[in-house]
């Protein structure tokens, strides 16, 4: 298997029928202190009914990637390159008003903190109705309201007929997130982008929301992009995983690839910080030392180099996102170590985490 250029489609075998195709996406912002390359060459495909997880710490560019898909990062200060195609239609070429027709109807997005993501001065119902009537101008007020109630019911809000007139602050966190999802689903989009949908919630509520997303994904064939920093969330629902660091994808593969045969030391770090019941408990959870880099001053070469205990001479060059395992062309990573070296460090020396457990 020869090294494929980065811009090649994610799964060469799948042919041209992907629902959403992202190629060479780069997003830069002009800031007071210079230009920041928040996203630096991301590409992936999303098939109908699939759940794709994008994982990374804050500053990895995962949220910017997600928001750029529906043009929310467009501003005089931002610079967007690359291509985002929805059923073959190039979204980056659309005008703002054309994009408005895509938002909500074809791609819906829900956000991290349901408390701040709903306008506190309008009732939950009216915000759902607003989403419906923004696109379906034929819908009358009554009809839209009936649909709002139906939607709230469908996401598991009890007593929806009455709750539709409540204000967001009268909802609990989990209920608000359900309402947010209802709002997103109002026009039956084919893609749902969930940006850290469970981060602000209690652990028990988290599981409920993930169940809801998974159920919607199965019952409606709703393709979902799940943005998170939490591999535990990923393990529950994702089909495929993209690991991002410093604006770049550092590893990509199926859920099993990432969990059972992780190739990038950063992924090892993320996995190390996850408690696993199927393995003997380490004395102390390994962790990734240091902090994510400032995008204003990215290190040269591999962005993970300063935090990586396996760094060697070659790391001053940026590694490409390549398939390095002979039998799996779709599992790719950005690390100069050979699979053999990785396996050795990971399994023989047990250095899965970046800091050895003591």
């Amino acid at each position: 298997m020869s090294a494929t250029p980065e811009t090649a489609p994610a799964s060469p075998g799948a042919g041209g029928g992907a629902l959403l195709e992202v190629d060479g996406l780069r997003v830069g912002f002009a800031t007071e202190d210079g230009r920041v390359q928040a996203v630096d060459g991301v590409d992936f495909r999303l098939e109908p009914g699939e759940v794709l997880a994008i994982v990374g710490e804050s500053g990895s560019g995962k949220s910017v990637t997600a928001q750029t898909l529906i043009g929310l990062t467009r501003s005089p200060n931002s610079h967007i390159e690359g291509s985002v195609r929805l059923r073959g239609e190039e979204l980056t070429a659309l005008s703002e008003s054309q994009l408005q027709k895509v938002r909500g109807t074809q791609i819906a997005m829900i956000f991290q903190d349901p408390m701040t993501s709903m306008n506190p001065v309008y009732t939950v119902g009216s915000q759902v109705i607003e989403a419906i009537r923004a696109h379906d101008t034929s819908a009358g007020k009554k009809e839209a309201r009936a649909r709002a109630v139906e939607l709230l019911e469908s996401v598991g809000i009890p007593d929806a007929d009455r709750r539709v007139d409540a204000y967001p602050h009268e909802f609990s966190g989990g209920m608000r997130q359900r309402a947010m999802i209802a709002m997103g689903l109002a026009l039956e989009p084919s893609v749902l982008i969930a940006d850290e949908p469970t981060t602000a919630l209690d652990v028990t509520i988290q599981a409920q929301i993930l169940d809801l997303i998974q159920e919607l994904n199965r019952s409606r064939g709703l393709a979902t992009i799940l943005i998170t920093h939490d591999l535990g969330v990923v393990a529950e629902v994702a089909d495929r995983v993209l690991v991002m660091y410093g604006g770049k994808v550092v590893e990509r593969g199926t859920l099993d690839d990432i969990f059972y045969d992780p190739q990038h030391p950063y992924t090892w770090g993320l996995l190390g910080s996850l408690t696993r019941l199927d393995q003997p408990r380490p004395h102390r959870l390994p962790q990734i030392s240091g902090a994510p880099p400032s995008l204003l001053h990215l290190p040269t070469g591999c962005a993970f180099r300063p935090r990586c205990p396996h760094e060697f001479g070659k790391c001053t060059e940026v590694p490409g996102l390549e398939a390095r395992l002979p039998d799996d062309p779709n599992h790719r990573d950005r690390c100069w170590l050979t699979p053999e070296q990785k396996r050795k460090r990971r399994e023989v020396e047990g250095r899965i985490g970046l800091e050895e457990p003591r």
Partner: protein
Amino acid sequence: MLRFLIRRILGAIAVLFAISILVFLIFNVVPATNPAPRIAGKNATPHLIKEVEKQWGLDKPLPEQYWTQMKLIFTGKVKSYQSSINVDQRILEGIPATASLCIGAAIIWLSFGFLFGYLSAVRAGGWLDRGLTVLALIGVSMPVFWLASILLYYFTYKIELFPPSGYEPLSNPGKWFSHLILPWISLAILFAGFYSRVLRSSMLDVMNEDYVRTARAKGLSQRRVMVKHVLRNSLIPVITLFGLDFGVLIGGGAIVTESLFNIEGVGLFTAEALKQQDFPSIMAVTLFGAFFIVLFNIFVDIAYAYLDPRIRLGTSAA
């Protein structure tokens, strides 16, 4: 709601009481001289001064003096000794002129404040924003009475576009209007500048809110996002300001504008009373003004609860 109102009204009465004491102290205690000659006015006869001392109870201890004076004011029996007019009567007569001035000016400053603030926020960082910012800063940096003087000089004297000054009752709408144009403008300019700045920064704050991003993600049009989500939520600080400012003005706060344009309202009366140190008038007019400030404070709280459903009147009252 009822409990809220009762509590606020009791609070208002307490504040008015405190203010009356403050005014009383300023005029009776701070200057270490006998207040009677000042109350009686500049050309008072010894006989009049004696009479003043007796009527105002100035030979009695301070609390009793205070009580006597309040009784006079609230029974509408306060008389200015210099002009021997009934003070309460005179204040009531001034209300139409003051209200005409303030309401008209408020309409102007709100319209321009909103328009400029909105445009400035929507185009933040652009040239339009910079231009409006400079205009607004000039607006808030001018002494009002100076601007009014210049307007008077130019528009009534140089090009004789508007009648000189004075107030015409509303019974003659044309004259009423033409006499008020300049006062309206000069009173409104400062506020327009200030409100546009407040609205702009309030809108820029709201634009960074998550729910605005949600609204955009729903596919709402830019205009709808700006008006229904950004502007609506940015109104709260502006409405607060407006309630308080308007309360001050309607209660006779437009002292300078009214005296410059010779509008016979509460403000002009205040200015005259102050110049002549006509104590009965100042006392009455101050309480009148404070009453409106306190009243509009209550209005603001009610508006607040209406604009932001998270606020419950019962709890915000404290």
